[in-house]
């Protein structure tokens, strides 16, 4: 099939999923309200975990940030954004499975992965938008326009940081269909990613093996960049660029690696069949 046809189908799914999300927000007000409240709950949990070994000042010193509240807000947003692409992609597949809609959406594309990535992008995009809409007033009140401006920069970086995870998201989505205990795939992967990325604790205080793992996780660089932006020192702009290069490199490595595994997993999923 020509590449243009693939692109057309991909765009069709993105548009269809977006129209669905809008309808869902309108039809399900409880879900909409919960989506707006959830980032604050995440913020509280990061705060509790982060300060569990001392005061806010200790946290500030340990995390090496000038504005801990801003960092907390941003870190929770990152936790949602970066890990969200895996979480939302996989959850959307599981959700289809639970609803019994999975076979019908699979039949909308030549490849299941195409649907998964297109749908994952939209679901994540909506979730991120909701998170930032939710958290923006807090940032504005606490830090004023300057902090809000920083947040917007971080949003951009966070979106870039998602790219290396798209391949992992597709693999996780397929695994969630293949393995019987699908919930465990997510239950294991996401907390691990958050832990090693330094969202909750500084990487330096993590056990050696986790600290090493953190070097391979794109979210780590995202958190580090967020810290730099939160500090917002001109001398450190160069380091932000370095982080962006790392994202780029990781995007290539992870997505190529993911692509190879995806083809195999998709065939395996088709052999096992899709349960309703």
């Amino acid at each position, binding site marked *: 099939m020509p590449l243009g046809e693939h692109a057309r189908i991909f765009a*069709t799914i993105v548009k269809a999923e977006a129209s669905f999300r809008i*309808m869902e927000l309108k*039809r399900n007000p409880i879900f909409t309200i919960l989506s707006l409240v959830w980032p604050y709950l995440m913020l509280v949990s990061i705060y509790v975990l982060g300060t569990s070994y001392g005061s806010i000042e200790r946290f500030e010193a340990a995390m090496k940030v000038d504005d801990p509240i801003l960092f907390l807000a941003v870190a929770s947003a990152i936790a949602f954004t970066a890990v969200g692409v895996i979480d939302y992609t996989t959850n959307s597949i599981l959700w289809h499975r639970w609803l019994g809609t999975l*076979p019908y959406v699979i039949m*909308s*594309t030549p490849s299941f992965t195409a649907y998964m990535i297109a749908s994952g992008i939209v679901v994540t995009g909506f979730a991120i938008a909701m998170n930032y809409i939710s958290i923006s007033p807090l940032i504005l009140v606490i830090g004023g326009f300057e902090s809000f401006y920083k947040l917007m920069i971080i949003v951009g970086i966070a979106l870039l940081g998602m790219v290396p995870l798209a391949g992992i998201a597709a693999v996780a989505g397929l695994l969630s269909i293949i393995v019987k205990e699908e919930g465990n795939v997510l239950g294991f992967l996401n907390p691990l990613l958050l832990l090693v990325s330094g969202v909750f604790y500084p990487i330096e205080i993590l056990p050696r093996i986790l600290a090493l793992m953190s070097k391979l996780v794109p979210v780590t660089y995202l958190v580090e960049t967020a810290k730099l932006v939160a500090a917002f020192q001109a001398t450190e702009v160069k380091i932000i660029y370095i982080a962006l290069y790392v994202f780029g490199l990781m995007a290539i490595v992870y997505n190529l690696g993911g692509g190879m595994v995806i083809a195999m997993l998709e065939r395996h999923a088709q052999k096992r069949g*899709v349960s*309703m």
Partner: protein
Amino acid sequence: MIKAEEAIVARDLRKRFPVGMGLRRKQVEALKGVTFTVRRGEIYALLGPNGAGKTTTVRIISTLLLPDSGEARVLGYDVVKDRWEVRKRIGVMLSVERGFYWKLTARENLYYFGRIYGIPKRKLLGKIEEVLDLVGLKEIGAEDKPYEEMSLGMKARLGLARVLLKDPEVLILDEPTLGLDPPSARMIRSMLRSLADEGRTVLVTTHNMYEAEILSDKVGIIVSGRIVMEGTPSSLKRTVYKVVPISFRLKITPMADLEGLRTSLGMLVEAGRTSITVNGDEVRLRIVIPRVEREESYIEAVTRISYEKGFKLLEARVEEPSLEDVFIEVSSRAAAN
């Protein structure tokens, strides 16, 4: 080589599924070489008990499951190699009860699926109204009802509406009337018949004998992963049952001679193939004749004998075995083998 009039061709489809884990893991053979052909414009019913392999077959033909071996083609396209071409041309309904978003209305659900299937927005809006009308959801005022508030009958109609949204040449439906009330089931059956009359091909699975009998042009009886018998409902009956029972109701008149009737019938029908029961002023008579012989001549002969022996014929009826009889007979033969 597939013939132009063949819409679905399945040849020697085999499928195994792993069951259990570790040392207890074993393979269960769900399909053991399923072969059948559905002609264009035909309604083909795959009839079988639970676990016979109906759903596995349907999922392979719908491109949702890869067979271990064998081949299946839809409108000439291979379901494995050309799955996208197949997907574009089929409409599938896999469950009556699930498969839609609970919070969205019928119309919104159709909009989402129409968009995902790539139907242009303007065309889709018109098509949604058309299919909502066609399946009767508008008539009962359910088009703007959230899916979670719909009855099973409404859900089945919506499922059929989604199938029709794509204007498919081939419809594949897995137990489309399962659990429905009689009016809804009748409506679904009549819709399927009209669609087949328009030239669309319908593959339907069911374990409802009545449905298979009245709906389908051709029936494939599937037992333990194999099609054990195939044909039109009447040809299946003829194949399985080599005899035809005919029953009569006779009125006893004052000149009636019951013994004379018995003797005359004994000369007409093979011994042991006649039964006579007296019930008040009526006689119930049943004869069993070979299927190859003409039923009419026997009815004429019994009518004449009855008149001569002082009885008045009230009713004569050729009893047909139902598809259920055929199914039970075939299943027990398959199990015995």
